[in-house]
């Protein structure tokens, strides 16, 4: 790899290198969930490029010092999509890759839903709608401490049904949290069914705009577009920024793609083999 990390300065991987990392980590996600026998593959696969762009190009952090006060913060609000998050965190050096096999097992620090006992995890999760409020708290702390870090919160689209998201959206604009970026993983599927069937969200861009946010949209799997959008979100900030990232639930595994059945279940042995062959 030509890239690498210097603590606190972020990585310099090229887009093709990031795409290779994505492929590698998709295999980690499937392996992790298959080993555990449970977990949420759909959202882990849809969010992956967003996390890769953040952790391997955009954010500054130090995996050897997860609590470094100047770090950019990432808050996984859709905490069920933890296998994707763990794959990225371990690849970024927060904990050894072997630990992924302990996911959901007794005495592991890799919990079913992301919890700060895992190095690199900021917030406890598992109940939807809370991450944007927490991220706003982190963003306001930066102002109090006169620090220039950014705070990124990744929200599910189904999660935007929660009223607290909109309480937080309203207050982030009110308190002028310009260092706060909300990214919506717009994969259009929630727990039971398609979001349009459970609770229609569109026009989602107008909702955020009307709550006082700057809104950007991007393909959530195209790393060039993602990087450009995230870069733009760091600059010329006068409001908090919402990025609606259009993604495919289950991305990369043909039979999981756009399939509500793989929101929250592990592949069986046959499905596991097939998924790993597709991701080879």
């Amino acid at each position, binding site marked *: 790899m030509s890239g690498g990390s210097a603590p606190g300065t972020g990585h310099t991987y090229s887009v093709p290198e990031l795409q290779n990392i994505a492929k590698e980590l998709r295999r980690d996600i499937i392996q992790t969930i298959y080993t555990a026998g449970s977990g949420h593959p759909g959202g882990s696969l849809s969010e992956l490029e967003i996390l890769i762009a953040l952790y391997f190009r955009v954010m500054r952090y130090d995996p050897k010092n997860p609590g470094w006060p100047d770090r950019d913060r990432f808050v996984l609000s859709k905490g069920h999509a933890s296998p994707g998050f763990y794959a990225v965190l371990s690849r970024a050096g927060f904990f050894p890759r072997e630990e992924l096999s302990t996911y959901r097992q007794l005495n592991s620090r890799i919990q079913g839903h992301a919890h700060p006992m895992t190095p690199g995890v*900021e*917030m406890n999760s598992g109940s939807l709608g809370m991450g944007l409020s*927490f991220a706003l*708290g*982190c963003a306001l*702390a930066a102002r109090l401490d006169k620090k220039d870090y950014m705070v990124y919160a990744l929200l599910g689209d189904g999660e935007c049904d929660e009223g*607290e998201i909109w309480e*937080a959206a309203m*207050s982030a604009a009110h308190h002028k949290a310009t260092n706060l970026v909300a990214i919506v993983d717009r994969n259009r599927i929630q727990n039971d069914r398609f979001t349009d069937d459970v609770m229609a969200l569109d026009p989602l861009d107008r909702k955020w705009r009307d709550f006082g946010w700057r809104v950007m949209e991007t393909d959530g799997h195209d790393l060039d577009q993602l990087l450009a959008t995230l870069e733009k979100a760091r600059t010329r900030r006068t409001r908090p920024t919402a990025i609606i990232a259009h993604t495919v639930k289950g991305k990369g595994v043909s039979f999981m793609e756009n399939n509500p059945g793989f929101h929250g279940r592990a592949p069986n042995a046959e499905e596991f083999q097939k998924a790993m062959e597709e991701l080879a």
Partner: protein
Amino acid sequence: MVAQRKMASTRQTYGETLLEMADSFPDLVVLGGDLNVSVFTHLWRDKYPERFFDFGPAEQNLVGVGAGLAASGKVPFVSTFSVFGVGRPFDQLRVLVSQPGLNFKLVCTHAGILTGEDGMSAHGIEDLSLICSLPSFTVISPADTVETVQAVKTAASEDGPFYIRLSRAATPVVHDDDYEFELGKAELMREGEDVTIVATGVMVSVSLDAAEMLEAQGLQARVLNVHTLKPVDEEAIIAAARETGAVVSAEEHYFHGGLGSIVAQVIGGNHPVPLEMVALQGYSESAKAEELMVKCGLTAEKVKEAALKAVSRKQ
């Protein structure tokens, strides 16, 4: 016979105590939900606007932002009415605050029926039950303004989630100014060997009155002020059961999950003796606080009767 005590507002004391701590706790920030004048955090808001954040009546977000600030090294004091601060954002308190054990301080006023005229929806009679069910929380129910000052300062100094329960109405002052609050340690307010009245909050004053009435009938009642409900002073409660053989709990809270339940757990598991609970039996209504205290049976007379009953049940 019943002592005349000075009345003072614990919520006003709270707001004033925050101001006192501003310099010694540079990371202290105050968060409110549009009830700042009522909870007296407007004093802080007007003096330290850069360390104050209002979120309107949106308590889930209020607690969530507080958790983010706590995780970033700030010491958030989050305040509203007990019904809004505990009931509405209970899930945020559970997931964001209690489970990671963040350094988060929830101070709620307008607890219990002392909220009076606003009626049953405004009466926080379940807050202790709810908050004591969250494993990481330390829970304090001060008896008066003197204790409130020290409870608030203790919460700021100690790490971890704290809940402090305050009232709307002014309440009797039962402590001298030189009182020393000790977290987790019940205060022996009156010695006695015939029965123990274990009280918290405003019922400490009521129980001291009851003890006077019992003395007139030839019974010596011990009175314990259990200001810290969690972790509770088991030792003092067990000793009371052992040494006096009968216990009365007295609280301005629903009888499920509050002080009475805690005392029952402690003595039931260690030294079973007759226990009578003076507490709220259900929802109340709109009326003056003092009228509700009488109608709901939270009076010295009722505590005295409960003590006599507990004594009569001794083997």
